[in-house]
C-alpha cells in the first residue's frame, strides 16, 4: 500500500508541477472598462409630426422651404452648360478652322463648281484678290472643304452664304456671355453650396427638404419626459373640485406664460368656458395649482418651446376615469 501511496503522491505532485509550469503562461484576461452609453432625450414629435418640405427630396435639412424648388436646377447645371447655349457651344471647337476658309468656299459651292477658275472670271470685281489666292489653291480647295464641313455639321452645302456668317457670331457670343453670366450664376451657386454647410436653424436661405407642406417649422420641442415632469409638478399642487356635480367634465384649459427662470411671467389665462356652475371653482383651482408650484424646472435651452404653455386640467385623469 505504501508503494502505491508514494507513487500516487509523486504522480499528483508531478502533474501539479507541470501545471504550474505550463499554465501560468496563460494570458490573464483583463476586462476592458465599459464605456457608459450616452442617452439622449429625443422629442417624439420628430416622428409624429411631419416636417415641412418637398416630398421628392430625400434629404432632411434643418430649414424646410417651399420656394427653393427652383434653386436646385440652377444649382445643378454648371455655369458652362446653360441650356440655351449648349447647342451653340458644340460648333466652337471646329470654329477656328472654318474661319479662314468661309470666303473661298461660298463662291464655289452655290454653283455646280467643278472648276473654280471660270467662276472667278465672270466676277471680275471681287475676284482679283481671291483669284490670286485661289489660283494658288484652286484644286486643293474642294478637298479641304469637306473636312471642316463635317466637323461643323451639314449646314454649309444647303444653306446660302448668309447662314455661314452666323456661326462666327455665336462664337463671339459664347466668348462674351460666359463672362457676363458667370458672375451671377456662380455667386448663386456658391451661395447655395455654402448654406447647407452652415446648417444652423436660423439661416434664412431656403433649402429643399423632405417633409410635407403642412408640417411645422422647426422649433425646439419638449421631450415627452420633460412634458411629463412639468405635468407631474403641476399635478402635485392641484386640488380639483372633486365633490362638484359633473366634476369629470370640468376640463380647464390654461395658458401660462413662463419666464426663463421657470417663474410665471403673466397671470394664467383660462382658455375655455363651461356652463357648469362649478367651472369657476375648477378654473380657480387650476390657476392656484399653477401659481403654487411656481418655479418650474425646464431646460433653458428649449425656452422657446415652453415660453407659453397650454395645459389641460382634466379631472378625469386624476379621478382615475
Amino acid at each position, binding site marked *: *500500500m505504501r*508503494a*502505491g*501511496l508514494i*507513487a*500516487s*503522491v509523486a*504522480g*499528483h505532485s508531478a502533474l*501539479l508541477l507541470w*501545471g*504550474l509550469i505550463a*499554465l*501560468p503562461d*496563460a494570458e*490573464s*484576461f*483583463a*476586462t*476592458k*472598462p*465599459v464605456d*457608459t452609453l450616452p442617452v439622449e432625450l429625443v422629442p417624439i414629435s420628430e416622428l409624429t409630426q411631419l416636417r415641412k418640405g418637398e416630398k421628392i427630396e430625400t434629404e432632411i435639412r434643418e430649414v424646410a422651404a417651399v420656394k427653393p424648388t427652383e434653386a436646385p436646377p440652377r444649382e445643378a447645371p454648371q455655369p458652362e452648360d446653360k441650356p440655351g447655349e449648349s447647342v451653340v457651344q458644340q460648333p466652337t471647337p471646329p470654329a477656328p478652322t472654318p474661319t479662314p476658309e468661309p470666303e473661298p468656299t461660298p463662291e464655289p459651292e452655290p454653283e455646280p463648281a467643278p472648276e473654280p477658275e471660270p467662276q472667278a472670271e465672270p466676277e471680275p470685281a471681287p475676284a482679283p484678290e481671291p483669284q490670286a489666292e485661289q489660283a494658288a489653291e484652286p484644286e486643293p480647295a474642294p478637298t479641304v472643304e469637306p473636312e471642316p464641313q463635317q466637323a461643323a455639321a451639314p449646314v454649309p452645302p444647303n444653306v446660302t452664304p448668309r447662314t455661314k456668317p452666323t456661326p462666327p457670331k455665336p462664337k463671339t457670343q459664347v466668348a462674351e456671355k460666359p463672362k457676363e453670366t458667370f458672375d451671377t450664376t456662380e455667386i448663386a451657386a456658391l451661395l447655395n453650396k455654402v448654406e447647407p454647410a452652415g446648417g444652423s436653424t436660423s439661416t434664412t436661405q431656403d433649402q429643399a427638404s423632405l417633409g410635407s407642406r403642412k408640417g411645422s417649422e422647426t422649433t425646439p420641442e419638449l421631450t415627452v419626459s420633460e412634458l411629463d415632469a412639468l405635468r407631474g409638478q403641476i399635478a402635485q399642487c392641484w386640488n380639483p373640485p372633486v365633490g362638484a356635480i359633473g366634476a369629470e367634465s370640468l376640463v380647464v384649459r390654461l395658458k401660462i406664460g413662463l419666464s426663463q427662470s421657470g417663474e410665471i411671467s403673466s397671470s394664467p389665462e383660462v382658455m375655455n368656458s363651461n356652463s357648469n356652475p362649478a367651472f369657476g371653482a375648477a378654473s380657480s383651482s387650476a390657476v392656484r395649482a399653477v401659481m403654487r408650484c411656481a418655479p418650474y424646472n425646464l431646460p433653458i435651452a428649449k425656452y422657446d418651446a415652453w415660453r407659453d404653455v397650454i395645459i389641460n386640467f382634466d379631472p378625469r385623469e386624476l379621478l382615475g376615469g
Partner: protein
Amino acid sequence: MNELVQSTLTAQDGDISFFALFWEAHIVVKLVMMGLIGASIWCWAIVVDKTLLYSRLRRQMNRFETVFWSGQSLEELYGTLQSRSNHGMAAVFVSAMREWKRSHEGARPAIASLQQRIDKVMDVTLQREAERLESRLLILATVGSAAPFIGLFGTVWGIMTAFQAIAASESTNLAVVAPGIAEALFATALGLLAAIPAVIAYNKLSSDVSKAVGRMEGFADEFSAILSRQIDERG
C-alpha cells in the same frame, strides 16, 4: 458615475493561472478542491497498489500451478510452502493440506467427514483471500460516483459568490461574473479528474478480482476432488 463604473469593473481582472484559480476561491470551494485532490491521490494510490498486487498474485498462481501439476508429491510441496506466508492458490492448498495432515495425525484418523472439513477450510481461505483482494476497491467506487457531485457542489457555491459579486458591482457585465464562474468550474473539473480514473480503475480491478477468485475456486474444486479420491482410496 463613469469613473465609478470603471473602477468596479477593472477591479476584477481575470487571472486563470493554476494557483490563482485555487487561491482566489471561496473557503468552501477551497475545501472542496482540497478534498477532491486528496480523493484523487488516495484513488491513485489504491489503483497502483491493487495493480501491483494482482499482477504479483497472477504470477504466484501461475508458478504454483506449474509446480502443482508437475507431478511433484503433495507432501513435499506442502513441506516447502508451509513455512512461508501464502496467498492465492497456495493458501488454499496449504489450508487443505493442513486439515488433511491433522486428520491423519492422531492414532485414530478422523476420515469420516474429512471431505466436508477440507471443503469448509478451503472455502474459508478462499473467502479470506477474496476479501483481501477486494479491500479498498469500494473506495474507488465511492469516489467515482461521489466526486462529480462534490465538485458540482463547489461549483454551485462558487457561482453563488460570483452572482453576489454582480450584485455588489451593480453591473450586468459578463466580465464581472466570468472569472468567478471560471474559478467555480475548476472545482467540477477537479471532481471529474478524480472520478473518471476511479470509475475506470474500479471496473478494471473488480473484473481482475473476480477472475482471480474464479481461478482459485476452480483450483479448490479440483484439489477437493483429488483429496476426495485419496480419502476414498485409503478408506
